[in-house]
């Protein structure tokens, strides 16, 4: 414990630079070079005032040309682009959720997909009004999966999961007509609204952006999370390690990357198979190491303790180690660059999903029905590739940190039960956390999420903000690439309590938790929604009154915008470190940073100065405390 030390961004960068040296030797490209080639970026694009939704254009707005050919002004164009961006994100997350529902539908007692958390399945079934008594668990799984799939195209009504929100929040959504309906409908309606000649009124477009976001957060993403738990187990605190040093030069290294755990779960299963390990030894390796990148990594880290090799902007680095036998990907956030890069090494770049097909990859189409054979074939391919490794190119940076991950809402509540006193308290609630907050021991909480973006020095914003927040007695829950940044730095090591303020430190000691809690992948931001809903119900405060805010300091994807929208629409002020493409419209910017507060009691704050962003969050948290007299 005495030798705990955070890993710095400078150390990350030194390791990356060393790997880029290897890259140079083999003529590899890298995002660092491509960023340079792409800078400066298109100003019209950045401001969101380029319209190319019909073939009369493209039109772009300037002071001399304030309207497009159809007559749409900058506000309409920006808002339309914003909604399209959101719809892309909502579709993506939700389609992931749909795949999981489908996998659950394929679950069988004999596997390969089984129901690992039947209790959770029964809980959801009851919540959805499905009769559970005397039913075979797999019959129930199929019935619930079918209902889950139906949420995507349900004819009438709203998403089932929104009933989990506090009544006040649900009332707001109904009042503002943003309660999410069928998931596919919200995405389709968004695309309909943004078609040439439909909506150009910012209020209407932003309202739909919130609604499309909500169908993701309280619909598709939540389905993704909940049914992944049913299939693969609800995460519980588990020890793991993070950063490239988790790869092992003596072993066959398989790196899983993407988002959907259906594939990676199977890879992990077979990499653990004694037969496969024996085969790896036969091929001259000492064993098999599976590690992860991006959210697939988060999924298997949370459930299996599989180590995390890195986050989004580190995906090329795993190949640059020269020790990666296979990088196996499913969907989302996968650089097409991995194809050409893998050709510079012995690495097999294996794509598996019809959704994410790329040049220069080995495509092994993966499906729930044939998962076992697919996974086995992939592991075997990696093992057989070990002999092709070029030893002179192998360099794995000796850099990793310990992390305790796996804080699902269920795990958080269980952890909180551990600090209750059975003589006075009830268990199974978030009340102990509320007491810590209302007494002032913890000032509040920040949900840190999102990606890396070369516009921000990678990981700096995540790490610096977290350090600042925990030093100020603000607990951080993190997911996605933000969580991995924290883990790489060492902020998910329980020893990180020593860099917290006295209040958070004491809480970490009493609850035996790290100060930054890993809540999962990006679909798992739905867990954060459930957590704030529970906090609201247990405290009697509205979500917007809680001293809790959201933050995506290095976000980059469409999914991130969809997430931002559902987080704000749920009542949490959200702080961004990268500007969305809306600066071309004062009206849209005003709506997002202020106007929508009238609808959902929360709004965005954008601040590119990371230190100021931290100050603003702390300030907002203190304002919220003052407002409720705590």
């Amino acid at each position, binding site marked *: 414990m005495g030798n705990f030390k955070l890993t710095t961004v400078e150390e990350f960068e030194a390791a990356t630079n060393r790997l880029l040296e290897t890259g140079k030797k083999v003529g590899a490209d890298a995002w660092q070079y491509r960023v340079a080639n792409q800078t400066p970026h298109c100003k019209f694009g950045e401001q969101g005032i380029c319209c190319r939704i019909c073939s009369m254009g493209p039109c772009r707005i300037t002071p001399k040309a304030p309207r497009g050919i159809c007559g749409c002004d900058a506000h309409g164009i920006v808002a339309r682009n914003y909604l399209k961006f959101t719809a892309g994100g909502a579709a993506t997350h939700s389609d992931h959720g749909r795949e999981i529902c489908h996998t659950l539908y394929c679950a069988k007692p004999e596997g390969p997909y089984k129901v690992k958390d039947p209790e959770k399945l029964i809980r959801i079934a009851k919540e959805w009004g499905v009769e559970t008594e005397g039913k075979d668990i797999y019959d129930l799984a199929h019935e619930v999966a079918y209902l889950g799939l139906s949420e995507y195209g349900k004819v009438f009504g709203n998403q089932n999961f929104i009933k989990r929100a506090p009544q006040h929040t649900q009332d707001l959504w109904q009042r503002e007509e943003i309660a999410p309906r069928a998931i596919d409908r919200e995405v389709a309606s968004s695309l309909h609204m943004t078609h040439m000649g439909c909506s150009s009124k910012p209020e209407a477009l932003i309202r739909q952006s919130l609604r499309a976001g909500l169908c993701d957060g309280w619909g598709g993403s939540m389905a993704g999370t909940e049914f992944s738990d049913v299939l693969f187990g609800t995460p519980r605190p588990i020890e793991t390690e993070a950063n490239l040093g988790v790869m092992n030069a003596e072993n066959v290294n398989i790196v899983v990357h993407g988002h959907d755990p259906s594939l990676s779960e199977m890879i992990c299963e077979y990499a653990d198979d004694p037969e496969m390990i024996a085969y790896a030894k036969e091929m001259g390796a000492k064993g098999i190491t599976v590690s992860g990148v991006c959210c697939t990594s988060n999924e298997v880290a949370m459930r299996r303790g599989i180590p995390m090799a890195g986050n989004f902007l580190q995906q090329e680095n795993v190949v640059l180690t020269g020790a990666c036998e296979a990088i196996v990907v499913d969907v989302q956030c996968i650089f097409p660059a991995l194809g050409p890069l893998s050709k510079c090494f012995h690495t097999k770049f294996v794509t598996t999903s019809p959704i994410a097909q790329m040049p220069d990859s080995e495509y092994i189409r993966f499906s729930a029905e044939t998962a076992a054979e697919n996974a086995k074939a992939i592991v075997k391919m990696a093992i057989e590739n070990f002999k092709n490794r070029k030893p002179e190119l192998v360099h794995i940076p000796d850099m990793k940190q310990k992390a305790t991950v796996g804080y699902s809402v269920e795990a958080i509540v269980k952890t909180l039960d551990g600090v209750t*006193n059975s*003589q006075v308290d009830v268990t199974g609630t978030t009340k102990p956390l509320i007491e810590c907050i209302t*007494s*002032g021991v913890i000032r509040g909480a920040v949900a840190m999420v999102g990606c890396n973006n070369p516009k921000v020095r990678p990981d700096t914003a995540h790490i610096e903000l977290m350090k600042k927040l925990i030093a100020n007695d603000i607990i951080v829950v993190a997911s996605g690439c933000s969580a991995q940044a924290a883990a790489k730095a060492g902020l998910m090591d329980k020893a990180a309590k020593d860099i917290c303020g*006295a209040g958070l430190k004491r809480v970490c000691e*009493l609850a035996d938790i790290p100060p930054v809690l890993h809540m999962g992948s990006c679909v798992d931001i739905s867990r954060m929604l459930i957590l704030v809903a529970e906090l609201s119900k247990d405290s009697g405060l509205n979500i917007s009154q809680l001293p809790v805010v959201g933050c995506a300091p290095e976000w980059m994807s469409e999914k991130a915008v969809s997430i931002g929208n559902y987080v704000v629409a749920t009542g949490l002020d959200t702080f961004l470190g990268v500007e969305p493409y809306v600066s071309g419209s004062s009206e849209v910017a005003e709506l997002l940073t202020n106007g929508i507060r009238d609808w959902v009691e929360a709004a965005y704050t954008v601040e590119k100065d990371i230190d100021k962003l931290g100050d603003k969050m702390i300030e907002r948290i203190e304002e919220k405390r003052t407002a409720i007299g705590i």
Partner: protein
Amino acid sequence: MTLFDVVFKGNDAVYGLTEQAIDAAIAQHGADKAVAFPDTAYSLPCYFGVTGTKVGNLGELKTALGVVKTLMTREKKLNDVFMSGVATALCAEFIEVLKYIDGAVPYEAPCYGHLADAVIRELGVPLVTGDIPGVAVILGTAPTAQEAVDLVKSYQGQGILVTLVGGVIDQLQEMGYKTGANVRVIPLGKDVTSVIHVVSVAVRAALIFGNIQGGDAAGLMKYTFERVPAFVNAFGPLDEVVVACGAGAVALGFPVITNDVATLEAVNGKVPKSIIGQPDVAKFNATSLEARNIKIKITNIDIPVAFASAFEGEIIRRGDMQVEFDGSRVDCAELVQTREASEIEDHKIEVIGPDIDEMPVGSKQSLAYVVEVAGKTMQADFEPVFERKFHSYLNCVEGMMHTGQRDMIRIRVSKDTFNAGFRLKHIGEVLYAKVKSEFAAVVDKCQVKIYSKPEDCTRIRHEVAIPVFDKRDERLTTLTDESVDVYYSCIMCQAFSPSHVCVVTPERLGLCGAVSWLDAKATNQLDPQGPCQVITKEKVIDERIGEYEDVNDAVRKFSQGALDDVSLYSIIEKPMTSCGCFECICGIEPLSNGVCIANREYAGMTPIGMTFSELASMTGGGVQTPGFMGHGKHFIASKKFMKAEGGVARIVWMPKELKETVADRLNETAKELYGIENFCDMIGDETVAEDPETLLAFLEEKGHPALTMEPMM
């Protein structure tokens, strides 16, 4: 008002009072007037712990108050609240120390006020072994006197040390409830500031056992949080001052449980595991233990009175006594014997002879009890280990007093306990239950025979017990460091003293006096992963000072690298470390070229110019301090005592009482080693000298051998 605001307000109020009190004292006595607590080497222990500065007079106290003020920051963060709590505690310490000006005795029975360092050193072992599983600080006035009694009694029954502050003291007095250190209920004082006297105990525990350096406030708070199992029970109504004190308690890691739920709720003051509202005083005990994670070892013993370590020090006076068994007047004995499993019927308790109700009240009687055990891994060497625990077992019975051992025992049973239905078979129940539960790893079956007919007792004593004792003594005399193949480590104290390791050898028992080589061997057998591990002694480095490669390896491992090498027989070269709960401390007295030894019970001055407390503060916490060594009383007569420096001939001074205790054995050792008769007569004591010059004159007159030995340094 928020919880934080209340703490700040309470802290400000106490600070104001302290400033006034110090100013008034300076006006009355002048700034040069000395201030100190009696019997401590740590000046104002809390202030010293937090700042590393020792305060000597009123002027310095005023300066110290300025330092306290710097802790009183007012940001709305827990750190500010913790520091304000600490500041409040320090102010209380300042107010309290003023009461001791001019050697005043500000506290009268039943209140204790300041507690001496020696008291804390004594608490070390029972806290480590869990005999004292926790420390309760009860503050304020209970809703009713009966509830106060019930609460105190409940802790006492669990062996928890209870300290009292405020109205609860009067409530116990009113109910005629017995208090005092011997029953582990210590009234501190009636002013809220007297709570500092228990805080001072916790702080000194960190300084003494934890090797926390004065001024390392963070280390201090970490130590108390992790290692001192204390908690506070504060009766409502809570005022700001109590809440500010509470913040100090929580800062040290001690949860506060209060029945003033309304006040807590009004300020959103509930904090999990730290500040807990419990309206029902009857549930304070369970709530507190759970909050501080204190587990009570439950041994269910079928006797009609309570059984708890809190009763261990209880004294039964003649007038309260139903009957007495006195080995100094009639034949008595206690004995453990190993038998074949087939010879024992488990849990059979036989009383052979008259029972207590057949004995005249106040009479002296014979008693002999033999505990027969069988087990596959039982060894005869363990018999005395079990036997020596009988003293503690029987003393834990409420209303029963046991002293001595072997055939020199004395047992008193109180009238109350007799009236509650206690009979001789219950002695058997206690011994059976404890032996079976504590030595479960080696004892499979156990039965007890209790003889009360004088003729049986005479027979058991002379024909059975004494031959066994003689045989054992013979074994002990042949049990030398050279005659065994292995030594044992003992790290029982690491709960408190994280880097200390004792190396226990046949001729050098643990410094606490509680762990002999045989004890360590038994402990190892009972729990092979436990605190006592086998240490081989195959690779000698230096025979003279007793240094072994294997011993060093073990010490390095068990001290987590804090300690590199250790000698068994030298106090100058790589001396063995101390945890802090040593029975005795010896230190070099340069003028006479020898060492002085002081025992914990001795409160006076030594010729070294330091009291036991001051000497003791030179070492402890697992650090090597050449020239000072903590050790057990028994070690004094060992042939291995300071062997490297020439052995027991170096001993020039001991308190009289200690000298008398060890005289027979020490004389024997000196005779054997140097051919000196009655060596103890050459050793000085407090009646001879408390300064080095007088001592030297005495030693010269006696021709003490140390004077002609090689210089030690």
